């Protein structure tokens, strides 16, 4: 920066002591700052942020729809978007047909003729039961295998073998055990979701940093305290990685299971629409399945973050 001109200080004449000297011009000039850049309106900033996150997705969707319409002309076997709307707008617009809400509790009509949302709810209820079971048992087994090296040696090979069995391969066994469609679907969910939960929890426990274990040793924590104060909080991130993979897999499995078994649920809906040659209904169901699976993943992720923070 160039040095500013020295302020001229004129000594006041002794006789005219009462005269007030003007404040030096140069000093006044120094007090004017260059104008600040115009601050953007906070609402505008927010809007910009929103647009920059949402617009790419919107463009991608528009592109996808355009591509789909172009690729599937009026005569193609796979219906284009316009045809899907034309054939399935009833399904799209009335997802909760045959469902009565008592407050938040849905009451789903018996019989097959219900909306797609009702089928989704049936499937979700099954997934919830099977998944809750696998979460509890999976975390417990993961902890056992992670803390005890003999349990690890005994069980790990078994887990490694069983986890590669595809969900549908369990179906005959599950039907043989339970003799009923309902419980065997839940078992299928359970057996599909449990492996990543066990594996990740075990890894989390095994990877507890040695520093934390040393702290526990120096404080002479008893086993219960060690588990509650160190092990559990330390392996929350790994545990929720497993729980997240598990929920995704259980959603995959339920659709497959219901397709084979029939009755109710989104898997049945797809199978039914396929048998009735309603391919556009199937496409609507695909979108629903994707959205619900995405939501499940996010919900489990969110719970994990909330727990890790508390």
């Amino acid at each position, binding site marked *: 920066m160039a040095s500013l001109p020295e302020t001229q200080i004129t000594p006041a004449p002794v006789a005219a002591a009462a005269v007030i000297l003007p404040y030096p011009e140069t000093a006044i000039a120094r007090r004017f700052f260059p104008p600040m850049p115009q601050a953007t309106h906070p609402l505008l900033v927010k809007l910009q942020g929103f647009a920059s996150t949402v617009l790419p997705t919107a463009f991608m969707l528009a592109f996808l729809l355009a591509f789909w319409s172009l690729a599937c002309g009026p005569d193609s076997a796979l219906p284009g978007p316009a045809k899907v709307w034309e054939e399935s707008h009833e399904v799209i617009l009335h997802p909760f047909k045959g469902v009565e809400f008592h407050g938040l509790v849905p009451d789903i009509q018996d019989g097959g003729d219900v909306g797609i949302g009702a089928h989704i709810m049936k499937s979700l209820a099954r997934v919830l039961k099977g998944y809750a079971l696998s979460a509890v048992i999976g975390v417990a087994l993961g902890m056992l295998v992670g803390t005890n090296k003999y349990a690890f040696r005994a069980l790990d090979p078994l887990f490694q073998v069983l986890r590669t069995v595809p969900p549908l391969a369990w179906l005959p066994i599950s039907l043989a055990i339970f003799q009923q469609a309902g419980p065997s679907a839940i078992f299928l969910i359970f057996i599909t979701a449990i492996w990543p939960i066990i594996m990740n929890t075990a890894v989390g426990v095994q990877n507890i940093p040695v520093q934390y274990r*040393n*702290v526990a*040793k*120096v*404080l*002479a*924590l008893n086993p219960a305290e060690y588990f509650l*104060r160190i092990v559990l*909080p*330390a392996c929350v991130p790994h545990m929720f990685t497993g729980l997240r993979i598990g929920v995704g897999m259980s959603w995959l499995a339920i659709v497959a299971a219901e397709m084979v078994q029939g009755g109710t649920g989104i898997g049945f809906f797809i199978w039914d629409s396929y048998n009735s040659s309603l391919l556009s209904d199937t496409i609507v169901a695909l979108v629903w399945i994707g959205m619900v699976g995405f939501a499940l993943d996010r919900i489990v992720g969110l719970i994990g973050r909330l727990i890790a923070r508390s």
Partner: protein
Amino acid sequence: MKQRSYLALEGVTVEFPTKAGKFCALDHIDLNIEKGQFVALIGHSGCGKSTLLNAVAGLNKPTKGVIFLDGEVVDRPGPDRAVVFQDHSLLPWLTVEENVALAVSKTAQGKSKAEQKDWVMHNLELVQMTHAATKRPAEISGGMKQRVGIARAIAMQPRVLLMDEPFGALDALTRAALQDVVMELQARLNNTVMMITHDVDEAVLLADRVVMMTNGPAARIGEDLMVDLPRPRQRLSVIDLPAYGAARSGVIHFLHERYRNPAQAA
């Protein structure tokens, strides 16, 4: 039978099993530390300082030899030998206050909840950390974390305070500030302390006695130097004393002449 020192290491040998056979880290270490003595342990990297400290902490067992603390044999870790770890080792899911409280809950048997809380806050105050009591370790600086680590250790009212390079990861200014904290605490509490350091000035400034270890493997105690400086100490008033300079040059000669850094010698 002769009177044993407060903390007595008798013929402590530590060997680690490795693929290439046994690795002898420490070879027949004899060390006697009196109650209220502040001992600095100094030596080149990898000579076995942490191994020795961890043996006293009970985190690793000597292959041979015995460690006595106040007449009792040390055979497991325990809160009577609090450790300040080099990397602070605060539990990240607990607040500063909860980290100290966890230690207090294990050592303050018979105290009421309110008394325990007061004790936690009192110890945080000793290291000037009450302002961050509700913060998580991730939200405070490295120097602050180490203060909390010290508070956690002294709140346990240990019989021996063990510090493994407590300030090794800190910048020079923060380090000096924490040395002042330790000096102040030592003047108030007169703990028995065993502290590992790489820093000659830190050793001389803080300790009553500097124990110098030879280079490993099979490290031994090479020299044992008493630091004859008055207590309580103040950084500026002691560094010009002749005893300070003498102690300092003694340690430096040991480290850089008699037992040079093995990495440099090679």
